[in-house]
């Protein structure tokens, strides 16, 4: 019984860590610019494939594979900013929310398909993996899962330090709180947007490497974690980073329990029911504050 429980907990925490990373990337962009990035899933996939290319095809060490994924994600974020977001921000602000979502859906499809055309549809093995298990008293923990949790914790610390301690982070938080006021205080809001998209792209790149190391590389790789990250964002209240991490861990644990108890196909529907129940109870999310809007 404890074995099963441990297995569920390990699986839940691992996927929770991955979802948290994906959710934070999404939530960061939403919180600071009011933009829902539907291309995030494809950026995740891109990171996984770039790491694969660097390590397998070029024969470079694993650390460089990670670096490649980070750079690729950041570059994708920058391209997204220059090609789409910058142009849409010029238009009426009230249409931005929907337009940017539709445009990033298009970019996401195009990017996923470009990956499919480049690498083919057959699943590939991500070389970033550590074999073996680790024994701690009665517990058996695979190194792979420990590595993922460790990487995610490190990334979370890096993100929270970057947001809390640096000049850039202060500018991002200021823009998130009040874009106009930040601009009037001399924050280059457009540069903040670029930085946020690059940061979230980099997070997506790492997340892609981690997700693919658990399963396999395939072009729709990012879609499943992304869909779950979306509903976790909704539960936590979009734009709330600590809430996003908490919701990701909680829902991932719930999912792995349900998958064990009722079978794999009920995992996602159960998450959905929880989300709907939460939203009926608290329409702006568990940790989201009800927004007071001025007309």
């Amino acid at each position, binding site marked *: 019984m404890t074995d099963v429980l441990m297995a569920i907990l390990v699986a839940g925490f691992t996927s929770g860590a991955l979802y948290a990373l994906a959710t934070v990337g999404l939530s960061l962009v*939403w919180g600071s610019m009011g933009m*829902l990035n539907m291309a995030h899933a494809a950026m995740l996939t891109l990171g996984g494939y770039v790491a694969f290319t660097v390590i397998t095809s070029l024969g470079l060490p694993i650390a460089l594979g990670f670096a490649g994924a980070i750079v690729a994600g950041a570059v994708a974020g920058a391209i997204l900013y220059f*090609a*789409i977001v910058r*142009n*849409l921000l010029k*238009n*009426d602000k009230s*249409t931005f*929310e*929907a*337009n*940017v*979502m*539709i*445009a*990033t*859906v*298009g*970019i*996401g*499809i*195009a*990017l996923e*398909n*470009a990956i499919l*055309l480049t690498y083919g549809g057959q699943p590939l093995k991500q070389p970033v993996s550590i074999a073996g298990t680790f024994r701690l008293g009665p517990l058996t923990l695979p190194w792979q899962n420990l590595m993922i949790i460790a990487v995610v914790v490190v990334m979370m610390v890096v993100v929270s330090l970057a947001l809390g301690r640096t000049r850039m982070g202060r500018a991002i938080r200021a823009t998130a709180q009040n874009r106009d006021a930040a601009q009037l205080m001399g924050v280059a809001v457009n540069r903040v947007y670029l930085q946020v998209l690059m940061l979230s792209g980099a997070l997506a790149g790492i997340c892609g490497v981690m997700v693919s190391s658990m399963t396999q590389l395939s072009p729709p790789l990012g*879609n499943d974690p992304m*869909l779950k990250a*979306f*509903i976790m*964002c*909704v539960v936590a209240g*979009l734009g709330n980073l600590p809430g996003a991490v908490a919701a990701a861990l909680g829902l991932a644990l719930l999912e792995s329990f349900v998958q064990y108890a009722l079978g*794999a*196909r009920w995992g*996602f*529907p159960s998450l*959905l029911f929880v*989300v*709907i129940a939460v*939203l*009926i109870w608290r*329409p702006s999310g568990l940790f989201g504050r009800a927004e007071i*809007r001025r*007309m």
Partner: protein
Amino acid sequence: MTETRPASRSSMSPSAKTDLAISLVLIAAAIALPFMVDSRYILGQIVLALFYATIASQWNLLFGFSGIFSLAQMAIFAFGGYATAMLCFYFGWNVWAALVPGALGAVLFSLVVGLACLRLTGVYVALLTLAIAQTMYLLIVTDTECFVMVGSVCRQFTGGAVGFARFGDLGTRALLRAQWLVGNYAIIAVLFAVTMVFTYAIVKSPIGLAFRALKDNPGYAVARGVNRFQAQLLVFGISAFFTGLAGGFYAAHFQAIGPGVLSMSQLMFIIAIVVVGGVGTFWGPLVGTVVLVLADELMRESGEFRTLGLGLIIALSVVLMPKGLVGRFGDLVHWLARRRASPDSKTAVSNIVQSPAPAGK
């Protein structure tokens, strides 16, 4: 165009006249079409395009006119199709008898979805409806439990990954034999026309005004006494009826329905149609359907680049033409009017520039 509105209050407004003229031309073209098209393939694609146009017009009613960013459109379409197919398959109903109950089932489904989602606004609605649509897809595809045995083959309640087939058709094959496709074309064209007429009536009616007010300025609309939740639930149900009905006809026309209609790419195609044609414009979905189906046919030659091209078309048209082709056409008309007016008087210029785009366009 709109500057003559006060004078024409008693009779039809100019934009309504334009809409009527466009509809008459379209009806004439629709009647002439089967006499001019010989190829079965082309006629088949046109029927498919009519389905797309019907679904897109209903999504436009939701998103373009009422500001509800629902991504459950294909789920509601599929629900209508599945309900019709299952009524025929399990109870042996005639397809024609099952169409309206199927559509009403879709309405019921949409109201449940709406009750769960429409308390929220904006992207929250989009995310939750997307999750619901994906859940429906996953539950159907992973359904492996035997429900009934057909011959020696096990059948799942939802049809599983295969879906339903051979549950009956629209009866045109028995009636018209070789010309059955023309018969189906006529039926689907009538479905599209009826849908458009109802959509027009809704958009122009007082309740349509409420829907648009909620989209343009929710705070103001609510302050003026429009009940947001009720009005949005109503438009959700109305659009679900026609979407579900289209789903039933779709299942009947192809004599099959499967989980494929729930795929992300189908949903994106519908969104692309509305975005390219013009969000919140009455003729936008039709224009978008013509353009995108043609583009899709052209890209079929280059096979594998189809999805890539579609994605880029969506992104580019949002960036380059936020109001779609119809909106761009409106800009062109304004520009021409301004050019013609500019030598005469400066006041007329500012009048035209400030007047909003014609409502019916």
